[in-house]
């Protein structure tokens, strides 16, 4: 297990001067499934954007395998944003071809299998599909890569419970000790069983980083219950 991501004194202030992420020091190791949890505005999305190179830090740095975010880091990070980023004009098969073209670690067979399991027609145009189906397709595309780091922002929020189970099983079966997964979500109780560690963010700072079973043992609660305690309004 090595350090996949290292944040050193990472800070990001937006134009209004309010810091979204403040002096953050965090290490993400390979071989773990992390839950990145925190209320809205705690800096989760900002942190994720900086890891992906979508935002430039105001101060400090974030290193992915020792490198600044760039072409090399994007080759090993598979990111699922909250947004639907697919061009609705395309067909499902077009998107598979696209990912295959740009990502060396993309496994099209895995994608076809998952699409079939979820009953998605590969020749359908995306604009004819429901929002939930489009989200599933995006998730399939992201999970069909053999990346070193998967960052999933709300992967199950817009999805029906049966598909949720399927998705969670997919994350488990795709698990690779050389890789890590970071799941950012509000639906803690649905996924806490598959987490190794949780990171609690509050107002741009890390307030807790611990193993889930540790929390259960010490607090005698589920992670979901513990979260509600820590972040009670």
């Amino acid at each position, binding site marked *: 297990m090595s350090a996949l991501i290292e944040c050193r004194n990472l800070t990001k202030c937006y134009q209004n001067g309010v810091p979204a992420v403040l002096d953050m020091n965090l290490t993400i190791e390979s071989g773990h499934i992390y839950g990145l949890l925190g209320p809205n505005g705690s800096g989760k999305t900002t942190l994720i954007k900086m890891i992906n190179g979508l935002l*430039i830090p105001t101060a400090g740095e974030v290193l992915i395998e020792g490198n600044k975010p760039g*072409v*090399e880091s994007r080759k090993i*990070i598979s*990111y699922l944003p909250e*947004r639907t980023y697919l061009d609705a004009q395309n067909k499902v098969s077009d998107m598979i071809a696209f990912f295959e073209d740009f990502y060396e670690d993309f496994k099209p067979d895995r994608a076809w299998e998952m699409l079939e399991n979820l009953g998605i027609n590969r020749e359908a145009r995306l604009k004819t599909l429901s929002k939930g189906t489009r989200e599933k397709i995006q998730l399939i595309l992201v999970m069909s890569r053999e990346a070193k780091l998967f960052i999933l922002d709300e992967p199950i929020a817009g999805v029906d419970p049966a598909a949720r189970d399927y998705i969670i099983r997919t994350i488990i079966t795709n698990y690779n000790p050389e890789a890590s997964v970071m799941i950012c979500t509000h639906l803690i109780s649905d996924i806490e069983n598959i987490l190794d560690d949780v990171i609690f963010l509050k107002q741009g700072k890390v307030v807790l980083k611990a193993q889930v079973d540790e929390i259960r043992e010490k607090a005698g609660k589920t992670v979901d219950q513990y979260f509600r305690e820590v972040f009670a309004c």
Partner: protein
Amino acid sequence: MLKKLFVHEWKDTWKLLTILNVAVILLSLSGLIVFNNRNMESVMESSNNNSVGYAMFYGSYMFIYILSLAVLTLGSMLFFYIRFYRNLYTDQGYLMHTLPVTGKDLILSKTFVAMIWRVIATVVCTFSILIVVWSAIAEDGAEMWREMKEVFTQLKIENGTAVVAIILVILMTIGAQLFEVFLGYLAISIGQQVSKNKVLGSIGIYIGIHVLINIVKNIGTQVFVFRIIREEEAGMFDPSQATVILTLLIMDVLIFALCYGMYMLIHHFMKNKLNLD
């Protein structure tokens, strides 16, 4: 990676652009028929009470034709601006900016494709106008081709300087096209900084830079003309081929330098100031 982006960009854009260009080509070819049909002309001359109808027919043809030219030129321009914006600055940006490609690759691939289609549109429009105008003026098809051939042979026997001048002028036109493309892209990437309404911001900046360029152009032209007048009065005006070539060369260098500067600015804003929603 640049090649892959280029191919992808091409795939997403060729259908609409081909339709627009083919529409113009078809309309101009039908102009050949409309204007050069001896039978139609004789019919027109014989039945005067139908002249209003025929006037309307020619009128509507010209209207549709000119409209198609406008749609092709303006449409191509707007299409690529909108595509740049949608692909890189809306939700699709989450996909494009996390691909293992550099920002420069993203900009260049889009610029190449846009430029190719602009050049195609310019060539199509130019020849289309030539064909339509010639067929309207010439008395019959044969004469039209004769006249066109004469012009081309005349061009060929000009001396080498003229050829150089023509090449420089073509380069300048391409430079101007590139400038337009970058202007739009720059306006869009700077407009993202405006927090309230990004689209309005982009449009505002676009108009702003256009106005600025026009002012500079006007001042430059006036200075240039002023100098020529002075030189003429002093009897020193010598519009030698060398001066013309030199002027053209300077303008070419200026335009491409400006384009490069804009390109670097676009890249800077996209890389350092990107903030997708």
